[in-house]
């Protein structure tokens, strides 16, 4: 194809695409619906959220309960599985098996892909790991003029050392380790007692980020660093730590995307920072999809850099379904374009300006529903993936099968992606499913609204489990739950 110079060219290019493109992950949640835009696109997943109904989702039939340590571990397992290899090879064109994209991958994944003839559409794992380091994020932000919450970076060996290192930040502190998932490695420390709860984890680190605790709202924004500039998506709110959704304090449990999520001033600043950060990432050698968390100080309206996720994320499912994504192209297509061998020259400023317009952002929200009780049981029934309808009085019922959130037409409908199904263990922290709906799920005080609560209750009621009375079985179940299957959908 000749040089791509317009969005129409990009659309045509991907519609006509013949080279296999894969998203390999535990589920296809993060890139729901991308197959509609890209020819020869397939998901390769460990969990079949669709019970075989979705043609572009490939799940190996022969699987064993395994103690997966991470999503990388799942992906490596998938890529070394004979059914997956046979599937990839059956679609390969000679030595070229196509393009692989992931939520997470490591050096081993890269080796396997090389052998299978798959090109990884992401910067090298080594670079991604370096970028993912929260300490490194602060450094890049500082260099690019994107401020972080007042902080110090230090090695901490005792509470006394923490106090000394953070003198200028006051006594109400937030400590983060360099790597870690939401809610697992962020510690709120206001006194010595708080410190001792987490001392072991903090002291094990060569360096931690110590921040002043501010009265803030979490937000997320996704972007893509391309050779023509950084394309920036809308600023979304984050649902964090709701006890009805997640057992992890401070754990991410959803997003909202709507035009007025924050003031115009805050939105503009966040977009500007994201663009600058994207350009700084390009200087570091990183390119493609990334996400930034911004912490918005509710007292001052200051916008601070929270963390960088150099990858597709849990918010990508919303970024890629909104009106702007459909009037132009989903953000992920810029990513695929950047890693394609096609030459392109697009006016990124023009796109960013369009995407900044409030009318480009229709309102969508998602809830990641985890099992929040300490109990463990075996699921005997689970709600199907598809469109669910809420009736007056708040009870819900299954309406019809669909693979795409867009099938939910109004706020009385929601698309539900089932993660845990019949035969799976339900344990504290297990992902039950993800609900995506139009409209908001929080009120202006960032509390879950009644509709959100009704959906959460409604979905939970669709699950039934069988108690595990036998202590031996229970022990097996617990170790299975804790050691394995306990990967999170990010």
């Amino acid at each position, binding site marked *: 194809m000749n040089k791509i110079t317009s969005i129409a060219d990009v659309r045509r290019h991907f519609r006509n695409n013949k080279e296999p493109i894969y998203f390999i992950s535990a589920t296809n949640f993060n890139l729901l619906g991308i197959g509609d835009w890209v020819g020869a696109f397939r998901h390769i997943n460990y969990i079949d959220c669709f019970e075989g109904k979705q043609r572009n989702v490939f799940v190996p039939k022969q699987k*064993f309960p395994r103690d997966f340590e991470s999503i990388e571990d799942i992906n490596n397992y998938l890529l070394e599985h*004979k059914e997956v290899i046979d599937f990839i090879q059956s679609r390969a064109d000679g030595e070229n098996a196509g393009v692989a994209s992931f939520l997470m991958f490591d050096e081993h994944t890269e080796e396997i892909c090389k052998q299978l003839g798959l090109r990884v559409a992401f910067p090298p794992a080594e670079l991604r790991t370096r970028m993912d380091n929260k300490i490194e994020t602060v450094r890049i932000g500082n260099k690019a003029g994107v401020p972080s919450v007042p902080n110090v970076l230090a090695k901490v060996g005792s509470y006394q050392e923490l106090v000394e290192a953070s003198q200028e930040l006051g006594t109400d502190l937030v400590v983060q380790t360099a790597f870690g998932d939401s809610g697992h490695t962020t510690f709120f420390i206001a006194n010595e007692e708080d410190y001792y709860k987490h001392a072991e984890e903090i002291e094990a680190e060569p360096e931690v980020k110590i921040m002043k605790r501010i009265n803030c709202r979490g937000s997320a924004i996704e972007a893509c660093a391309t050779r023509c500039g950084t394309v920036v998506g809308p600023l979304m709110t984050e649902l964090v730590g709701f006890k009805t959704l997640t057992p992890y304090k401070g754990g991410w449990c959803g997003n909202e995307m709507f035009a007025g999520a924050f003031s115009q001033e805050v939105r503009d600043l966040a977009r500007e920072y994201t663009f600058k950060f994207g350009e700084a990432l390009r200087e570091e050698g990183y390119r493609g999809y990334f996400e930034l968390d911004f912490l918005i100080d509710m007292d001052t309206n200051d916008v601070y850099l929270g963390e960088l996720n150099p990858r597709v994320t849990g918010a990508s499912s919303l970024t890629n379904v909104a009106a702007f994504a459909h009037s132009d192209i989903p953000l992920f297509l810029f990513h695929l374009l950047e890693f394609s061998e096609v030459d392109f020259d697009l006016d990124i400023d023009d796109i960013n300006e369009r995407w900044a317009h409030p009318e480009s952002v229709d309102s969508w929200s998602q809830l990641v529903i985890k099992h929040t009780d300490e109990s463990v049981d075996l699921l005997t029934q689970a709600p199907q993936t598809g469109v669910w309808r809420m009736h007056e009085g708040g009870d819900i019922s299954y309406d019809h099968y669909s693979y795409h959130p867009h099938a939910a037409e109004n706020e009385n409908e929601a698309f539900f992606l089932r993660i845990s199904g019949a035969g799976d263990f339900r344990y504290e922290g297990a992902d039950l499913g993800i609900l995506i709906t139009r409209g908001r799920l929080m009120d202006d005080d960032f509390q879950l609204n009644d509709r959100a609560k009704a959906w959460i209750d409604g979905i939970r009621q669709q699950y039934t489990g069988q108690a595990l009375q036998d202590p031996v079985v229970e022990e097996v179940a617990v170790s299975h739950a804790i050691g394995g299957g306990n990967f999170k959908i990010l």
Partner: protein
Amino acid sequence: MITDGHHAAGPALDGELNKALTFRTVHEPTAGPKWQSLFEYHWPAYRPWYLTEGERERPSYLECYNALRHHMPELLGTYNTLCELAGGGDLSSRLLSLYRPPPYITGCSQAVLASPQSTVLARNYDYPPELCEGTILYTRWNQRQVIAMSDCLWGVLDGMNDAGLAVSLAFGGRKVVGEGFGAPIILRYILEFCATVPEAAAVLKRVPTHMAYNITVADAAGRYVTAMIAPDRPASIKRVAVATNHQKKIEWYAHALASETLIRERQLSILVDDDATTDERLIAAFSAPPLFRHDYRRGLGTVYTSVYRPNEGKTEFRWPGKVLSLGFDSFPEEQFTVHYASRGLYG
């Protein structure tokens, strides 16, 4: 090697042990429906064995494939064909590679009697009869005709090819387990692609094994070696005509005592060193103690005796009261049951 659930086993009414194993000869030059039905017959028993230590303990399909590709690339075509016949599943394909399978042990005695006129490789296979496949396969998967006692569905306990090469394996009496292949597939590889003892020795030196084995190889030119292979040390390959269940010095005393490895080695060494020993005398020795063993209760009884004459392309499988003669030119398909009891063996 494992319980396949089809063979009668268990104590008789008077407490006497009475086990039975059905042997069958299968003639199928190109892998096809006969091999497929053998796979289907044995797979229900192999599957749980393969999963004994948990699925995660077994290498992935890609690791298995890469190991085969790296160490025995010529075998890949056959491997792919058999995987396909086995249904193309992930787990069955991993097992069929025999790369890092669960550990297992055997007994066995073997000896070569070589003269310029003829070479004879004879051996006793001592193992729980109910865990033996009992299949004698005639194949021509890769140009060469091969007759072999099968194990792990396509591996070889002992066998011979039409280039005049005969091989046999015995457990090496050591507990060490490491990165490598189950010996039966290494023997298969040798029979498919080697013609002489030096070629076989090069393979035994090069291909890693996951446990300790003593492999005896003999060819029609009268050459022979015994290779003591193990995952933790380089192979020792010497012109030794005899092998039982230890490598140099005894390391696993309990196994050595139970299997009487030293006594059997001594007996065989005396026999092969004696100029007066004829083929018949050597073969006869395998039918009597200490070589022939009745220890079926502990899984160390003799399941069969095999005799290979690579110059003539002929082999015999022997049980007290029964001899099955087979050759590349004469390989009738048949099936019969052998009963094993602790006081004797009845064909």
